[in-house]
């Protein structure tokens, strides 16, 4: 991609002689987008960086006082915040592991000739296109201890999925797995279909066992694409807000994004929440960086 020959920005080119020069067109096409993103994404972040050093509260008219690094110090030494981080870590682990197992499993099952395969694949992908908040909400009915169909089908009598503080996080993760395992499946299928058939044939001639073939051929070749799926889902799970917010208000399911929301828009600790947002931001940018490196690596192949 990078080695591609680029059009030279020659002001005396034939096209430039008549219309706008290539340089003008390039700037005309690119600068508005960059400007838009700087104004509506970067400038607000600078704005909140400034607030993160103050005790500002958006609910009062009191002027903001500069407090230096106090907010950051308070946050990093607050055991409750660490609790939110550990809940989030647990949630990410459960939900991403679940998605990889289910999604990759489905892809392995689908990677053969099956009647109406295209239709089945599209239907399986449907959950990930739906709104997490709206469909997630409906799971409240499915999880209902008295008349939910989940308890009915699993034969669990009045099992409290969302009201039990120890179970609620798993219940949310299950919905997330339902929605996003198809995403892992989609990427895995692409990876599986790219494995050259002759490798399997060679393995068969060598009488390699199924397990051996899987670990020595399938998995290593699918790994890069699977890795993209894992990093992307990790990033998204880390940011989870909608699903957990509509499904549960348990303290045991208070993910970072929910804590941040409450701090900013219910407790109106604007300065403190800006500082918190920055701590989260740095973590997200770090994961994004890894993600993009991987994207480019796979793209280059």
């Amino acid at each position, binding site marked *: 991609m990078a080695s591609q020959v680029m*059009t030279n920005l020659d002001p005396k080119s034939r096209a430039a002689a008549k219309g*706008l020069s290539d340089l003008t067109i390039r700037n005309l096409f690119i600068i508005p987008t960059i400007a838009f993103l700087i104004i509506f*994404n970067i400038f607000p972040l600078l704005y909140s960086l400034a607030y993160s050093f103050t005790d500002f509260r958006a609910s009062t008219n009191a002027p903001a006082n500069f407090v230096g690094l106090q907010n950051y110090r308070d946050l990093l030494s607050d055991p409750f915040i660490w609790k939110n981080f550990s809940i989030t870590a647990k949630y990410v682990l459960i939900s991403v592991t679940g998605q990889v197992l289910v999604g990759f499993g489905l892809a392995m099952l689908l990677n053969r000739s099956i009647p109406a395969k295209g239709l*089945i694949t599209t239907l399986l992908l*449907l959950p990930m296109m739906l*709104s997490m908040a709206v469909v997630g*909400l409906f799971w409240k009915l499915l999880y209902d201890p008295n008349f939910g169909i989940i308890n*009915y089908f699993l034969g669990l009598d009045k099992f409290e999925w969302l009201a039990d503080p120890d179970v609620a996080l798993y219940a949310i993760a299950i919905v997330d797995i339902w929605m996003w395992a198809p995403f892992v499946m989609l990427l895995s299928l692409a990876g599986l279909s790219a494995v050259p058939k002759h490798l399997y044939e060679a393995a068969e001639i060598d009488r390699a066992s199924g397990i051996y073939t899987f670990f020595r051929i399938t998995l290593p070749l699918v790994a890069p694409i699977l890795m993209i799926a894992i990093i992307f889902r990790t990033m998204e799970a880390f940011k989870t807000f909608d699903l957990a917010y509509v499904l549960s208000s348990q303290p045991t399911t208070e993910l970072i994004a929910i804590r941040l929301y409450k701090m900013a828009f219910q407790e109106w600790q604007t300065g403190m929440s800006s500082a918190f947002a920055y701590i989260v931001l740095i973590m997200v940018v770090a994961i994004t960086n890894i993600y993009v490196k991987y994207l480019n690596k796979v793209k280059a192949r």
Partner: protein
Amino acid sequence: MAGVRTPREILTNRVAIVAVFVALAIMLTPIYWIASTSFKPRNLATTIPPTVVFEPTVSPFVKLFTKRSQLREQPTQEEYDAAPWWEQMVFDGGEKVVRNRRSGEVTMSGYGDRFTNSLIISIVSTVLAVSMGTLTAYGFSRFKVAGEDDWLFFILSTRMLPPVVVAIPMFLMYRVVGLNDTHLGLIILYTAFNLSFAVWIMKGFIDEIPREYEEAALVDGYTRMQAFFKVVLPEALTGMAATAVFCFITAWNEYAFALIMTNRNAQTAPPYIPSQVGSGLPDWTVIAAGTLLFLIPVAIFTFLLRNHLLRGMSFGAIRK
């Protein structure tokens, strides 16, 4: 996998096919349950064992769009007979439709307005994001840009920001300029969010259009601008359509920004629907009806998009 198959392979294949159908049934059950609940009378929505076979009714949809109150006393036979069919349905459920005292007009619930808001905001932000994104993608695809990879990373990273993180300063800034709870406010946020995605995806599509096409047009005396609009754009149309559908779905489904930035005037359906559950015993048939109507556009679009899903979900990194 061609070739001779052992009985063992055939058996594995059959087991796999059965497993696929079982998985499909499980994955689609929640969606089926939404659809089925939205046609149930209220008393059948929460039964044990679950009601699967029932006589469908559209009363949840009637209730979805109207404001209702509990019936204090039964309507007289005359009142009942005079009411249109949909009002009788509400009577049957032990409620009555709220009407304006003077004009007798039916008071609508908030759903219709929220649905319209969702449509306006999603469509406008999609058009903006795709048009700007296509131009920018062309710029990056065809011209030398110093630090190109860094700019592209910057563009993508704006999409990865958690909504709540961006929402804190945006809320304060919007408050200053009066954009909180306005359509324009959400349109700007969704455009910014989708723009980065559109640039990445469209760059992939435009990279695939051979540059010889434009060069031939330039030789024929087109200006670069004409070559872009008359040669490149028609070739990029499929890609733009797929990108637009993705942007639409993202804006349509968005929850966090809408929850924080709107409360009434410009509120979209995603924050509205959960707000109707409230406390006590919610009427799940009405929620299901609202959810179903909200999901239908996305379901249709998913089918139209089916060949581009992989590309869209991987930001254009993986193509078929």
